């Protein structure tokens, strides 16, 4: 748990760590009090989930995350402190940067999964590089088709046939994301074997994401050559 330290004021003596030391309302984020607008500088850098006042859980309501980002930004954004003393300006800018950094992790399924697997003591991407077994043959085939398309001139038939591959890969990415979700929700306990399963599913998501990005680049090339 992160202890909020209000600027220029002593720590509250009642030891209530999750309440605002000024208005005693419950804190939704360690960076500010939504009730009284006071800014805080957390003693330690909060985790992405702590920054948004959410429990450590891969399962997350994206719309709620959006709402919180806007609500907190309205209080801590540096634009509202441009005429404040240097110290306040800095806190506002750093808090907002931390919130935005946390948002980038939480709002992206793959990055959020990577963070959760690591936080629960699961294998890192360097430790577990495998893809789920059923992918192996397909990966080789897809790789060949992308390579072929890359070498054929824009506007050729090989390239035109890529649309089919794009929809296959998008569908598979969707499937892998739901399998990833199944491996992480409800939250695994620490060192649960489901974490290794989740890492493999995440590797598949990453692979498919990269392949789709390559296809998108080829498609843009195609579009601009027209």
């Amino acid at each position, binding site marked *: 748990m992160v202890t909020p330290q209000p600027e220029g004021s002593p720590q509250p003596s009642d030891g209530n760590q999750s309440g605002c030391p000024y208005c005693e309302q419950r804190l939704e984020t360690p960076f500010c009090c939504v009730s009284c607008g006071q800014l805080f500088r957390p003693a330690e850098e909060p985790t992405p989930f702590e920054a948004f006042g959410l429990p450590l859980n891969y399962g997350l309501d994206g719309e709620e995350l959006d709402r919180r980002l806007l609500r907190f930004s309205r209080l801590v954004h540096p*634009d509202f402190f*441009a005429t404040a003393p240097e110290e306040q300006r800095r806190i506002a800018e750093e808090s907002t940067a931390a919130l*935005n*950094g946390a948002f*980038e992790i939480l709002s992206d399924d793959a990055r959020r999964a990577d963070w959760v697997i690591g936080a629960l003591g699961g294998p890192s991407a360097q430790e577990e590089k495998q893809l789920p077994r059923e992918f192996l043959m397909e990966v080789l085939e897809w790789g060949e088709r992308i390579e072929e398309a890359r070498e054929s001139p824009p506007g050729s038939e090989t390239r035109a046939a890529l649309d089919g591959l794009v929809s296959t890969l998008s569908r598979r990415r969707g499937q892998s994301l739901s399998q990833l979700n199944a491996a992480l929700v409800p939250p695994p306990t620490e060192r649960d074997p489901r974490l290794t399963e989740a890492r493999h599913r995440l590797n598949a998501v990453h692979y498919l994401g990269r392949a789709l990005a390559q296809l998108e680049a080829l498609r843009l090339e195609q579009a601009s050559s027209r």
Partner: protein
Amino acid sequence: MGYIELDVLNNADPSLVMGIDLGTTNSLAATWRDGRPVVIRPEGASGSIPSVIRFPPDGKPVVGRKAREQAVADPSHTIFSIKRFMGRGLDDVRDDLADFPFPVSESADGLLQVDIHGRLITPQELSSMILMRVHDIACRTQGGAQIPRAVITVPAYFDDAQRQATRDAARLAGIEVMRIINEPTAASLAYGLDRTAEGGKIVVYDLGGGTLDVSILSLEKGVFRVLATAGDTRLGGDDLDRALVTLITNGLAEQLSTEDMADPGLQQAARLAAERCKIDLSAHPEAEISFIVPHRGIHFRRQVTREEFEELVSALIDKTLDSCRLALSDSGLEAREIDEVVLVGGSTRIPAVRARVEAFFGREPHTELNPDEVVALGAAVQAHILAGGSRDMLLLDVIPLSLGIETMGGSVSKVILRNSTIPCQATEGFTTYADNQTGVDFNVVQGERELAADCRSLGNFRLTGIPPMPAGMARVAVRFFVDADGLLRVTAREESTGHSADIEVHPKHGLCDADVDRMLEESLEFAREDYEAGMAANLGTELGTMLRACERNLEAARAELDPESLADLEEAMAAARSVADSGSLAALQAARDSLEVASMPLAAALMDDVARAALSGKKLDEV
């Protein structure tokens, strides 16, 4: 000036700020007045100042409309489109050098410099001359008020080096940069001002003189949030002109030698004629390219139809639609989900551009605001917000290109992804690859490609002092921090020992603080006369305001002043009247200073008298 204007009597706004659109072709300033952003226009003028500088061989540089008017007669001393050089290296600008009038070289630090009559001047300094001119005219138009603080706009797709260069140009111009904001985002602020209660998805298509930006925003309860941005910093109206110039050169090729064709006078005349023709074609189905180059005996005339022009630029417009596709895909939206389309930049006056954008998004674009002014207006809105004038609106902008570190094998490990909301921070762990490695070199890059060599290198730094340990054991945390201006700071720390290197990544092709200081000194030398004349004008105005305030209030408070104070004040007022129109900086300064001191008893009497009313020119620490 260390002054806070406390002018309750004049009811003047103590927090005057402005927004400046520093454009490739034209620049413009706007301010906030009576609850709205307004373009600052000298009487009878448009307010728009051509971003053109002429350096006659003997004499002072000329910036703006005059420079542009003289361009045909004196092409070899006139600089256009300097914005294309900002934050770039020599290799980046090769294409632009063909029609550049002065020799351009690169310093040992990778800084571009233009050799102007033997003096080496950077693009930052040249841009600062344009900014100074815009700022100066704006201050004079505002009654000579000092408005040191401004929001400056840049294309959304500007990278770190280009943003730094813009900020440095503003510093060199003596402007206190409140914020660097993106042009399309500024435009959305200007447009969204009356619609904050509604919501929706907005796309801003900004095709200016030299750059293209496409930004997609969501507007919800006054929060303008950029979802994605895409663009091209080397695609704009200049390129459309060049398409027409090829028509001219093809037409002349038969009758002229290669040497004739390379004549700078011819090139300049052709470019300006092409631009005129392009503008005419937006209003008429047919227009003429026509120009004369007297010293070569050329009188060129050719009719161009709108169809012919559209054929020529069709591929360029296609390219802009690619950026629309990319921005849409990054925002996770489909074209049909877009509620509003906003057009910005002079090039969006071209009917073919309008039609293609309208067809692409399936919506009629907004054109209520002048596309040449909307960016400056939006910058003024943001300046007003930053000055504390409004909490109803908030702008959440993004970084246009991913930031990362080159890793072993030359690939890029991305630390902050493109379209992340700024300010933003992220930390990435790295390790050593050799046993007992005590230092790590970092190459900080910006771009989307997988290989570092294909991205733009922003700078290198080295973390040293890592204690000897086996390969892969050291844990180096590299922290990227992008501030609200979109500028990057990088720090690195070895976590097992806590050994840290806090290093500002010094951009390649950028200025360091010492450069800025040196240039500031030189520019003062260079333009001391201008500077003094400007100062004198401002001081004269200020003195006039003080005098009027004293005159207005003296009668009411006369009885409350002791005779000595009264005599001092009347003497100081008389002295002020006698030098008000002298134009002498020293005399004005002296008169201002003594009037300030002499008017203090009056101010004190008024403070007692009319609660909290104060005199103009009162220093804050004496209140």
